[in-house]
């Protein structure tokens, strides 16, 4: 059974989704989905420990040997990504908003769970597969289900947000497909490892360059790299908060991983940075994303949109990690994938708790939150500290490596920019702090119970607590990513 783990972690949630449609009733579906997601998480952990023990795992789907058959290939790096994604997926699903959610979602809860499981299957599939067309298939599975998830938001504007994400996401996916098609035309193979062998002879051709461009732009849309981020604030802002929590911690992160994988193991750093000079585009765009995203976050009135703009800035850190093209920088980027994932998901869950207690997502409506919902408000503060990158939080670890990577290249100015941009995070986190702790609570907030139900608080603090633990103890993050990065920079998984 353990040798089938690479496929099981994808197939389990994939097949569980239609089952939850059959179950239909709310509570059994919830129990079922929880079982499946936590089992999937267990599977990814087992898979990662297998990789740690025995090295890269290759799995031929249906017994068809690669490169003809579809290959699932798990190395240290994507083993790490799988664990990160399934962890966030399982914890966020545990978060129960029944008490706070609106009628339409309550009536069709089983649809929510089905879409959630599909989305999780798609995201895990993207990370696990070693076949470039398979990546596209899973990309579409995760995207289509995430459009459905976003449209379940309470306000009607969730529908337009989902629609505009659908348009942007489809363009992105089409770009990816075009890129894949061109690669196939040039090399006649879809297997990533095989592509890496066959691509260098034709690397100079215009088709290859254009293929890379399509892939990079398509994936950049999905991960909201500035200036292709327009869909994200509305999508995260109007989706149900736990959907935002799930997508913020996983969707953009998996697209980031796919970009890293294609860039370093298929095209190779030599081609991308030596010939194409990707860093000349990516560094300015990353910096713009970091500053524009953070500045925009400062001026948001809705906490969900504030977090969404902050995500755009954080994606900037991750892409900066790629463009530094050295071990420290890429370590920073990949570690940030996990660190920012748990932090941002935890923050969205904290926002959901606050909204449940105080009935508002707007910062103005959260006056006195520190008194009325002390644990949720404090969770937001701790998560905010991790966004800033205060030492002792996960955000600090990633920033440390990014700055180190910049210094390694001799770019002092870039190190300064990274640190300055993290100061902007202080401004938007402290907007919340001042309202939550310095303003008298409004009348609405009076007379309700002080604490949120455990089904809300426990998952929130699970993620926020992890953001603190991984700030002090990095064996499982840096300890795994560091050797993985050495391999990636040599072009293998």
């Amino acid at each position, binding site marked *: 059974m353990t040798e089938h783990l690479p496929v099981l972690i994808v197939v389990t949630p994939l097949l569980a989704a239609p089952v939850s449609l059959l179950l239909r009733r709310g509570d059994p579906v919830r129990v079922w989905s929880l079982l499946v997601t936590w089992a999937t998480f267990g599977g990814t952990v087992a898979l990662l420990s297998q990789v740690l023990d025995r090295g890269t795992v290759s799995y031929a789907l249906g017994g068809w040997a690669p490169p003809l058959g579809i290959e699932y290939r798990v190395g240290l790096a994507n083993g790490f990504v799988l664990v990160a994604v399934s962890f966030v997926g399982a914890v966020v699903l545990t978060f129960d908003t029944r008490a706070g959610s609106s009628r339409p979602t309550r009536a069709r809860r089983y649809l929510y769970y089905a879409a959630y499981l599909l989305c999780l299957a798609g995201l895990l599939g993207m990370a696990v597969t070693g076949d470039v067309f398979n990546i596209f298939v899973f990309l579409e599975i995760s995207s289509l289900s995430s459009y459905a998830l976003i449209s379940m938001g309470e306000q009607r504007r969730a529908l337009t947000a989902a629609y505009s994400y659908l348009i942007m996401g489809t363009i992105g996916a089409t770009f990816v497909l075009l890129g894949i098609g061109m690669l196939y035309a040039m090399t006649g193979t879809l297997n990533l490892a095989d592509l890496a062998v066959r691509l260098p002879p034709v690397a100079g051709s215009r088709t290859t360059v254009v293929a890379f461009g399509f892939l990079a732009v398509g994936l950049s849309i999905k991960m909201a790299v500035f200036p292709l981020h327009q869909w994200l604030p509305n999508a995260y802002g109007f989706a149900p908060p736990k959907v935002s929590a799930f997508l913020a911690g996983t969707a953009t992160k998996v697209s980031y991983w796919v970009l890293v994988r294609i860039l370093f193991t298929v095209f190779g750093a030599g081609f991308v940075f030596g010939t194409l000079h990707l860093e000349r585009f990516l560094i300015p765009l990353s910096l713009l994303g970091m500053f524009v995203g953070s500045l925009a976050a400062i001026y948001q009135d809705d906490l969900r949109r504030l977090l969404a703009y902050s995500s755009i800035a954080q994606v900037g850190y991750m892409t900066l990690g790629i463009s530094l093209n050295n071990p420290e920088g890429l370590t920073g980027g990949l570690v940030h994938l996990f660190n920012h994932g748990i932090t941002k998901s935890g923050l969205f869950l904290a926002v959901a708790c606050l909204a449940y207690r105080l009935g508002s997502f707007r910062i103005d409506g959260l006056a006195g939150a520190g008194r009325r919902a002390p644990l949720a408000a404090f969770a937001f503060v701790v998560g905010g500290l991790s966004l800033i990158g205060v030492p002792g939080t996960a955000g600090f670890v990633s920033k440390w490596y990014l*700055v180190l990577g910049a210094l390694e290249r001799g770019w002092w100015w870039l190190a300064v920019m990274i640190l300055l941009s993290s*100061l902007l995070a202080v401004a938007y986190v402290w907007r919340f702090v001042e309202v939550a702790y310095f303003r008298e609570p409004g009348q609405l907030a009076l007379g309700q119970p002080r604490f949120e139900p455990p089904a809300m608080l426990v998952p929130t603090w699970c993620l926020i607590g992890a953001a603190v633990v991984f700030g002090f103890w*990095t064996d499982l993050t840096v300890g795994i990513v560091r050797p993985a990065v050495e391999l990636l920079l040599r072009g293998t998984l």
Partner: protein
Amino acid sequence: MSGALLAPQAALPVALAAPLLCAAGVGVLGARPNLRDGFTVAASVVTFLAVCSLWPAVAAGEPVELDLWPVLEGVTLGFAVEPLGLLFGLIASGLWILTSLYAFGYMRGHHERHQTRFFVCFAVAIGAALGIAFSRNLLTLFMFYEALTFSTYPLVTHHETEEARRAGRVYLGVLVSTSIAFLLLAVIGTWRLAGTLELRPGGILGPASDAAAWTLLALFVFGIAKAAVMPFHRWLPAAMVAPTPVSALLHAVAVVKAGVFTVLKVALSVFGLERLRALGSGLLEGTGPLLLVASFTIVSASIVALRQDNLKRRLAYSTISQLSYIVVGALLATSAGALGAGLHILTHAVGKITLFFCAGAIMVAAHETEISRMGGLGRRMPFTFLAFLLASLSIIGLPPFAGAWSKWFLVLGALDAGQQWVVGVLLLSSLLNVAYLLPIPVAAFFGKPPAPLEEGIHEAPWLCVGPLLATALLCLVLFLWIDPWLGLLEGITG
């Protein structure tokens, strides 16, 4: 400081953990004030005794270390006790006991709200200060440095008023932005240049170029804004909106001393005095420009202090000025200078905490904050103003008070370094100290009240007056009892 109560290896974890346990215990006992406050005192005594138990081992040169686990590759969350850190730890934990007692009198006398949160954050802040004192590498130090900033924010903004909110913005804004933009860059830069973050007497920089070393030094001096070198001093006067025990222990001792301690420690253990001297010491080369900035801070903060009518703000500017003495001592890069700087951490702490205790006692007893209205008050509160006088004399640096020793060694250090002009700065500053400190007790004893004093104004509760008399007395005692401290600090210059 005779025989150790605890084995040194056991005392270090106790000293580090006791404040945090205290915070947890205070949080749990919040509903029962007497038990809660008793617990704080017990924890502070345990902390102080644990720190004291480290003395014999440190004096004998035995290593006392505690390594927890690696945080980043090659950098461990770890602690090692050395003389300077022990000195700072003793000051912070010893004065914590007195401040706790004082705080009970003050917070209850003043009917402050949220006392549980107050004492929780207070204990965390002391824990962070001890973490800084005993850090064995720059990463650990930086972590506790930031923890100190964030744990004191709720204390500064304790009153939750609009004024407190604005002061909190300045406090956090200056401290966090300098620490992330400059200090963190300096730490990572050190890692890049030296390949280690270990704090070792004699320095770790090795073959780094002079330009790089100079840049690092500037980043450190300005990045450690807790040392309040201008232009990054604004947070300290802002922090005065906090309840007085916070101003007394944190903003005259723990927080600001953590800043100058870090500067001194960086000078000694990242650069090493030789390396600093090698940078050059002319006015416009090497440490010269930074010395100029620190000297400017000494003089101009004193001049600003002259013009403040609010007692706590005047003391805050006086603190800014006195902190730069220590920065100057570190930048002089001579043994005597470093010794003077280390001693000044001790002597200024004792003197300044007394002055703040007095300011708080006056506030509790007479509800007075403005100096111009304190005339004649000394006849109603003789002990408080006597203590104020003694502590002022110590800050000015007159014998027979402790402050005389540190100024003496600082002057020696300046002469050794061949920087005669620094001696002039120190003398000028002492004159300014006289001008802004002495008129206060003099007017209180001999002046006339601006308006007839209300009946019933008398000394503050004994829980307030007792501690301030104790620290005032300590200013005297330390003058006579300076040898053990000199002996302790002798080793720091490597």
